[in-house]
């Protein structure tokens, strides 16, 4: 075999036989990890602006979501490459193709609720985005599905946190053991920093 020549990949062959449109799947994964990466970046800014009596209490929750979103990027990117995909070489292109909007700091950031609304919008988009991957792979691609559903579980939890903070509805969760614990995706993608 010559250098650069890729042999037949049975793991891909099986997916195609199962009816997976691998090109579309790679596109969705690239958009999904793009959204996680940009969210990690923008959550850093949002977190910095969680100050004051109310903001300080929310800062740690934003930090949990921020690190876990980075973990989602780490968890799914190896699978993207396994499938023959790759990250765009230019980070600007990577951000522009992301499946979810940039979670920009709102102009009235002194109002902590305004920041919470942006956080909630970002989590809800992520749920839709990974839901698409779950739908495409359920019963056909167990490896991608397993990672996507783990990410999805954490995104659903993040949504619940921000809804509870905004609406004060009763809450079933307790705080994470440490920032960015990722109880569902922590074992994925060789997250050596955990």
């Amino acid at each position, binding site marked *: 075999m010559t250098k650069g020549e890729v042999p037949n990949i049975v793991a891909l062959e099986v997916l195609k036989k199962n009816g997976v449109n691998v090109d*579309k799947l790679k596109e969705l994964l690239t958009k999904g990890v793009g959204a996680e990466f940009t969210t990690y970046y923008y959550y850093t800014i949002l977190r910095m602006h969680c100050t004051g009596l109310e903001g300080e209490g929310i800062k740690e929750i934003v930090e949990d979501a921020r690190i876990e979103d980075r973990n989602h990027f780490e968890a799914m990117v190896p699978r993207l490459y396994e499938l023959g995909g790759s990250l765009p070489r230019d980070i600007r292109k990577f951000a*522009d193709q992301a499946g979810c909007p940039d979670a*920009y700091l709102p102009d*009235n950031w002194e109002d902590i609720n*305004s920041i919470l*609304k*942006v956080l909630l919008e970002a989590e809800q*988009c992520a749920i839709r*985005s990974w839901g*698409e991957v779950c739908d495409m792979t359920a019963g056909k691609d167990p490896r991608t599905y397993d990672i996507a559903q783990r990410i999805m579980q954490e995104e659903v939890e993040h949504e619940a946190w921000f809804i509870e903070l905004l609406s004060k509805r009763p809450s079933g969760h307790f705080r994470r053991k440490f920032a960015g614990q990722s109880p569902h995706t922590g074992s994925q993608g060789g997250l050596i920093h955990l």
Partner: protein
Amino acid sequence: MKDTIKEERYPVCKSAELADNTMRKITVDTIDLLVGRKNGKLFACDNFCPHKGASLSKGHFNGDNIVCYMHGYEYNLFTGKLEKMTSWKKEDTWVEQDAEWRKSGDLILYPISEEDGMIYVKKPG
């Protein structure tokens, strides 16, 4: 002599099974299509939203448009044209998204026909 036109088409369902103002997702050779009937007219398009790839079958009608459930973009089901780029801004104090992120192509349409009580769509590719 081979009837290539008939060979290239895919049977969707019986005409009676596709009611007016409804749509459904079908898969032809791993490609997901959205087919439906709006005000008596049949349509078929790629189910993959040209903006960010969401399933258009999870959207809803707005006149002749399909509204994507992910970001609210609207595409005309009969021309394929992008009709509305919904803003991300839920509040005036939110900052609008970059133009590169917002841009979208048009919807890919496929020929669809009805014959002898059956609906057919031209196979993609």
